[in-house]
């Protein structure tokens, strides 16, 4: 006779032998089955296109910020698939941009997608992909300049120093200046286009813009005024010397 254990359970000795044998056999079968299975092979998966926005909205269950971060973390980790590391430059950038767009649509306040675009995906050694990512930053800047100006400023610097494309850098810097009405964009970002023009040899245009900026009274800080005056002076000198050398 077996003794009852506690107030609920009976001893394992009351379990029929057939059940114990069956359990041991099935455990052995499972272990054997696992042993004869081929070892898992790492297979790289391609990045799929993001689902439609409306579907994502429905999937978010009324919590788009959470889903936005889930999408971003998934995208961010996509280069590290089990057993394989895919370089960013091998990703399909049109799809990467699609995911970044989707995430930003779900959470327009977030800076995360733009940071990933400007400082992660735009750093690949592939010029068309860099340009595609900078273009994404530019496009989404226009939706909310007050909140996203710093990423376009970053894109302008990248275009100037990494891509060595002064026209593109000027285009981005000009967009920053065009939205200068927004007080949240600092003056250094709004003045970028002037110095880019000077770099491009457009001394006259840069001088006019700088003079206009000083005369307009938008710059109030005495140090900034002194710096800009210094730059204006340097531009005038550079212009004079270029005229004299032509003579």
């Amino acid at each position, binding site marked *: 006779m077996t003794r009852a254990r506690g107030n609920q359970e009976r001893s394992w000795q009351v379990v029929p032998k057939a059940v114990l044998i069956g359990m041991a056999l099935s455990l052995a079968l499972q272990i054997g089955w696992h042993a004869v299975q081929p070892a898992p092979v790492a297979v790289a998966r391609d990045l799929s296109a993001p689902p439609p926005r409306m579907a994502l909205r429905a999937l978010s269950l009324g919590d788009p910020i959470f889903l936005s*971060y889930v999408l971003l973390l998934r995208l961010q980790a996509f280069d590290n698939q089990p057993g394989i590391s895919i370089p960013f430059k091998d990703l399909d950038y049109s799809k990467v941009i699609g995911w970044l767009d989707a995430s930003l649509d779900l959470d327009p306040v977030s800076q995360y997608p733009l940071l990933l675009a400007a400082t*992660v995906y735009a750093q690949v050694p592939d010029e068309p992909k860099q340009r595609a990512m900078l273009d994404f930053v530019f496009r989404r800047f226009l939706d909310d300049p007050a909140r996203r100006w710093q990423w376009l400023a970053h894109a302008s610097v990248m275009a100037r120093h990494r891509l060595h494309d002064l026209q593109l850098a000027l285009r981005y810097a000009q967009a920053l200046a065009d939205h200068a009405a927004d007080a949240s964009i600092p003056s250094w970002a709004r003045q970028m286009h002037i110095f880019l023009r000077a770099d491009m040899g457009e001394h006259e245009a840069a001088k006019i813009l700088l003079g206009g900026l000083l005369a307009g009274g938008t710059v109030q800080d005495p140090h900034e005024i002194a710096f800009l005056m210094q730059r204006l002076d340097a531009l005038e000198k550079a212009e004079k010397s270029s005229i004299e050398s032509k003579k």
Partner: protein
Amino acid sequence: MFGQIITMGRFVVLEAWRTRLPWITAIAFVLVLGLSLFAKALAVTESDRVQIAFLASLMRLAAVFITSLHIVSTLAREFNDRVVDLTLALELPRTSYILGKFVGYAFVAIAIAAAAGLLLMPFTQGHGLLVWTSTLVLELWIVVALSLFCIITFNQVMPAASFVLAFYLLARSIGAIQLISASPLLADRSLAHGFATLLLNALAYVLPALDRFTETAWLVDGGAGAASLGNAVGQTLAYVPLLISAALFDFHRKNV
């Protein structure tokens, strides 16, 4: 009758305490906290925002899941063990039984929501957290009433829990589904589409708009105001009585 309801409610709270519900909730919330810290570690920027978004969303889901499963399983056991028969053999009206159960589970819901709010406190404070926690209480009250109704109607755990889950997911996404149906890209104006849109709109009328409760944006971006809370209170006041009366209807018809 009021005394009976309170006594009934007290036993529900006692049962929740003794069936280790606090421990299960604590373990679930700690796991969610760990997951949110992991997400924070993965994030390259806005790490605090990422953590709060993960913590708040997953805790809300965990709270809803735990509350509904607790109600469905404890009441199913009462039905199966004939505890309901025994209770109703006493001088206890069926209405008091259901209302007492609701009051008890509502207190349990307050405790779960308060625990979620407390866990969020080190990461976010202020008005947003207060509104978020308050609307979580209201959301859980709707889930409590829904779970009561489902277990009384279906009697068994599986169909009742499935119905609660499906209902909850639909109630949280019905707004977005309505937008999809109204999208100009999909609006082919066929008869089937018109019927589907009509059906969805009709469905939205009988579902609570749970997507306006416990918004993560209140915690990370602010913007939670009296209007947000008022909206949730209004929705709860409209929907809980509906579910409770439906549960009473079914319970009174039940041959116990």
